[in-house]
């Protein structure tokens, strides 16, 4: 940091009027570039929110409007989308409950499985260590679509298709490799000397994991858990394959995609559904963003 500051002051001293004019141009270009990216990134989210608080008539009357007048503002879209089907709503409250349940249990199971696993990979020299590691990387990179058919057949035979249990199993399996990857990277930064001190003091390996490593890794564990939550909450393909016949078990993602194909539900109501689906993820993301980005790119800066 100080080195960078020094360099800048050196450059400042050397730059004549010509250079500073050029640098102002570059600075202006950069500001415009950032503004353009911000606009492109945020426009869809703003549009989502905008349409969710408008009556459909107002949208059709003036489709180009990027603002909402006070008299048009409505929350009835949210009432309709969240309300139970029996009351004329779309039942998203049930879908929200399903999504939350599936995502939360997936987080708990994935962490329970991945924490000891990541510790073993980071610290313990067991037989087949490298092969296991390679298997997990491959499993992490393997797209779901390739294993979707056999899982579909298997779950049909087991009678688990249509149940949330099957979905939780798939989500756990899909997130465990990436959870292991993130946690292992963090465990490896915990100094071995601290753990050895614990060994000398008579703690067992499991005691070390529980008393030393886990407490030290809390931020990373929280970030990993939230990452798993996001994957499970956002997932679409398996929800589509497994749950499509059982409306009561639909997740929010599946519900939104199914209803957006029909003409009976108005776009603004579905936009309210989109907001309901997106908002929890955005809030969670801003809470853990710092830890999350560090964990995901660990190792990338090696170049």
């Amino acid at each position, binding site marked *: 940091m100080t080195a960078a500051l020094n360099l800048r002051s*050196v450059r400042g001293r050397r730059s004549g009027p010509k250079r500073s004019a050029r640098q102002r141009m570059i600075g202006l270009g950069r500001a415009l570039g950032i503004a353009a990216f911000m606009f492109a990134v945020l426009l869809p*989210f703003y549009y989502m929110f905008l349409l969710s608080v408008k009556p459909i008539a107002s949208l059709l009357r003036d489709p180009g409007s990027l603002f909402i007048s006070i008299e048009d503002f409505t929350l009835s879209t949210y009432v309709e989308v969240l309300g139970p089907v029996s009351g004329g709503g779309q039942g998203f409250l049930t879908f929200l409950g399903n999504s939350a349940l599936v995502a939360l249990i997936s987080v708990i199971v994935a962490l329970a499985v991945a924490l000891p696993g990541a510790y073993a990979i980071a610290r313990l020299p067991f037989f087949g260590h490298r092969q296991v590691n390679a298997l997990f990387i491959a499993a992490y990179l393997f797209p779901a*679509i390739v294993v979707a*058919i056999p899982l579909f057949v298997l779950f049909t035979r087991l009678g688990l298709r249509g149940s949330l249990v099957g979905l939780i199993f798939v989500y756990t399996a899909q997130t465990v490799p990436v959870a292991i990857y993130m946690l292992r990277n963090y465990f490896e930064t915990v100094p071995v000397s601290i753990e050895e001190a614990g060994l000398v003091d008579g703690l067992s*390996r499991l005691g070390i994991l529980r008393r030393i490593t886990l407490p030290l890794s809390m931020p990373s564990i929280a970030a990993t858990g939230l990452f798993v939550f996001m994957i499970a909450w956002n997932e679409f393909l398996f929800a589509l394959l497994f749950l499509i016949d059982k409306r009561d078990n639909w997740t929010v993602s599946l519900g939104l995609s199914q209803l957006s194909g029909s003409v009976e539900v108005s776009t603004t109501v579905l*936009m309210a559904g989109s907001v309901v689906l997106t908002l929890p993820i955005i809030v969670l*993301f801003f809470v853990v963003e710092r830890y999350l980005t560090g964990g995901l790119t660990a190792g990338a800066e090696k170049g």
Partner: protein
Amino acid sequence: MRPHTANRRRTLAQRDARLGLTLISPTLLIVIAAVVVPLLWSVLISFQRLKLIEIGVANPFAPLTLANFNRVIGSGILWSSLSTTVVYTVGSVALSITLGVIAAMLVRKPFRGRTLVRATFLLPYVAPIVAVTFVWRTMLNPQFGIINEFGQKVLGWSEPIPFLSQASADWNLLGAHIPVPTALLTVIAFEGWRNFPFAFLFVMARLEAMSREPEEAALVDGAGYLQSFRYIVLPQLAPVIALLAILRTIWTFNDFDNIFLLTGGGAGTQVASIQMYTLLTVQRNVGAASAQSVILAILLILMLAIYLLILRRRGEKA
């Protein structure tokens, strides 16, 4: 006591190894049960006749046949879907990495609000896919979408463009008619928007670890901004860009959600994964769908091998 120490140390290492296996085994079991076994089973099904209606009583020991592969490869659908997939993948990967590099260069220098800007740039990547595709579809809607409204009112388009349902349009460029695959380009644009944050993250991490001194020296010596990017920054980014290219190719090649949710695979966007889904749910032919997925898996394993090779090369250098 002395002879005991060596003994105890060995047993500690052994105990560690055994504990390691115990701790890893739940993960290993799950990954084997949900990835490895299904993959093998998929290979088996691809050599058997299996209709969707029969899967409740599917028999793993049914006789083997090559009919599925004949059907998938012989029909020509595979090749057309694969060529669409390749165009889609190359376009999406190139676009998302280019945008990611530009975005990372833009926010490289500290400024007020930088943390917030960087976090905001990641939103397209973390937001639920169903929600963002729905918003894009609405924005691009020919009747009341904001983009067509803007194009007609401000840019002077004579009629709305059906971005997601038009397979190809004729662009009249200096008298030459150039066919443009509208829907395919639109889903590629969506991919660029959705996935540039992933490249952005990796490139940003690399830029932060990079020494600025060579660039500062070049600037003092009168090199332009673009020159210093081209000759100093870009070569240092090359390894991370290569890594990104292969990672994104692996994921985009088998991508299902984005296209399914945007176009449903219509209008010239029938990629291989959508083709597989159609075989499964419309033609109800589980065997043929499996054959298609096995072909995809083989291509994927080839790409993974390249990826692991790159990783190993990087490891040796580090």
